[in-house]
C-alpha cells in the first residue's frame, strides 16, 4: 500500500500526526462563569467563615425541676435513652394516646407517667427555647409539634407578667 508518511489513522497515512488546536474557546466567559458559580456555591462557607456556632446547651434549670429533690430529678427514661430516642418515644406516645386511647406510659422501671407532650413533658421542661430549641436549631430540624401543641413557655411569661 502506498503511503507517504509514518502515521496512520482511519483516513490513510500521514507524514505527521494531525494536530487539533488546543484552545479554550470563549475562555473569558467560561472561566468567569465557573468562578461565579464556585463563589455562589461556596458562599455559605465564606459567609460563616470564622464564626463559631455555640454548641447546644439545653438548660435543665426550670423552676419545676429545681423544686424537685435531687434524686427525683429524672425524666421518664434515663438521660442516655432520652437523648437518643425522645423523638421515637414521643411518636409512640402520640399513636398510643390518639389511636389506642392509652394515655399512661409505663416506663422501663415500671413507673406510670401521663403520656402527654404539653401536659407532662412541658410541665418540667417549660423552657422550650432553652431546652428543645437548643439542639433542634443546632442540627436544623424543625419538629412541627408546636403548630398545635402549646409550648408552656408563654404561659409562664404571662404568669410572671401578671405577678
Amino acid at each position, binding site marked *: 500500500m502506498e503511503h507517504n508518511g509514518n502515521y496512520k489513522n482511519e483516513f490513510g497515512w500521514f507524514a505527521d500526526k494531525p494536530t487539533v488546536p488546543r484552545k479554550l474557546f470563549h475562555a473569558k466567559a467560561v472561566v468567569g462563569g465557573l468562578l461565579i458559580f464556585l463563589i455562589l456555591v461556596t458562599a455559605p462557607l465564606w459567609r460563616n467563615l470564622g464564626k463559631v456556632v455555640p454548641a447546644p446547651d439545653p438548660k435543665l434549670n426550670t423552676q419545676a425541676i429545681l423544686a424537685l429533690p435531687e434524686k427525683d430529678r429524672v425524666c421518664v427514661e434515663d438521660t442516655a435513652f432520652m437523648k437518643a430516642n425522645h423523638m421515637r418515644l414521643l411518636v409512640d406516645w402520640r399513636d398510643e394516646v390518639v389511636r389506642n386511647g392509652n*394515655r399512661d406510659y409505663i416506663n*422501663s422501671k415500671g413507673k406510670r407517667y401521663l*403520656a402527654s407532650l404539653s401536659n407532662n413533658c412541658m410541665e418540667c421542661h417549660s423552657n422550650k427555647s432553652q431546652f428543645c430549641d437548643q439542639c433542634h436549631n443546632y442540627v436544623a430540624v424543625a419538629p412541627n409539634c408546636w403548630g398545635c401543641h402549646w409550648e408552656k413557655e408563654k404561659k409562664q411569661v404571662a404568669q410572671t407578667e401578671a405577678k
Partner: protein
Amino acid sequence: MSIKRREFLRLAGLSTLLGLGGKAAFELIAPGQLDAQTYAPESHALKAKRWAMVVDMRKLDEKTAAQCIQACHLAHNVPDIAKPTTPAAAVSPEDQVRFRIKWLWTEDYHNAFPGEEHEHIQEKLHHLKFLVLCNHCDNPPCVRVCPTKATFRRPDGMVMMDMHRCIGCRYCMAACPFGARSFNWRDPRPYIKEVNLNYPTREIGVVEKCTFCDERVSKGQMPACVEVSNGALTFGDLGDPKSKVREVLRANFTIRRKAHLGTLPQVYYIV
C-alpha cells in the same frame, strides 16, 4: 439423623419447664423489665361498649345550650372566626360563615331534621333550637372515605380524629350528612379568645369535629357539654342496660337525625 424417644422426651420436658418458669425467672433477675415501656389507659378512665348521648329538648333552653357550647369551645380551643383577637385577622361576613368551626352548635328543626317537618307541625318546633354535634355514627361515612385513616371509629364507638394524620382532603366533610366537620381554612389561634393550654389547637389545613370529649372521658369525667347542661344532656354506655342513657331511651320517645341514611347516628333527641 434420628432422635431417640428418651432424648425427645427429655428435650420436650425441659422446654416446657423453661416456658413455664421463664417469666418467673425473668421477674427474679430483672423485676418489672418484662412489662416495661408499655402503655395503659388511665386508671380512672370511663369504659363503655358503646358511647351515646341523649339530648332532652324539654330541658334544654337556649341559655343552657349556649352554656354547653361555651364549655365545649373553651375546653377544646375552638376558634370563633367571627371574633378575631387581632384586627388583622378579621374576615368578611361571607367568610365568617364559610370558615366557621363547628363542634357543638344549634340548628332549627327543619335544618336538623330535614324531611321530618310538614306544614302543620307542632308550634313549638318552629322555635326550638336543637343542639347538634357529631353523631358518632355506628356506620360512619367519614371514616369510610378517609384516605389516611385520620378519622377512625374506636371500639367504644367514638369517632375520633387523628390530627397528625389529616391531610386536609375534606372527603370526610363531603361524606358527613350532618355537617359536623369543619375545615381550618386559617390558622385558628388568632380566633381563640380564651385559651385552654392543656388542650392543643389545630393547624391550618386539617378537619376537626366533636370527639365526645375523649380526653375527659379518659380521665373519668363526663363530656364538657354534659357537665354544664343541668341534666338536659345524658351521656353513657348503650351496652350497659342499667346505664342512664338506656334508662332515658327506654322511658322516652326519641328521634335521630337523618336516620334513614343508614349511618346509625348515636345522638338521640327527646322532643
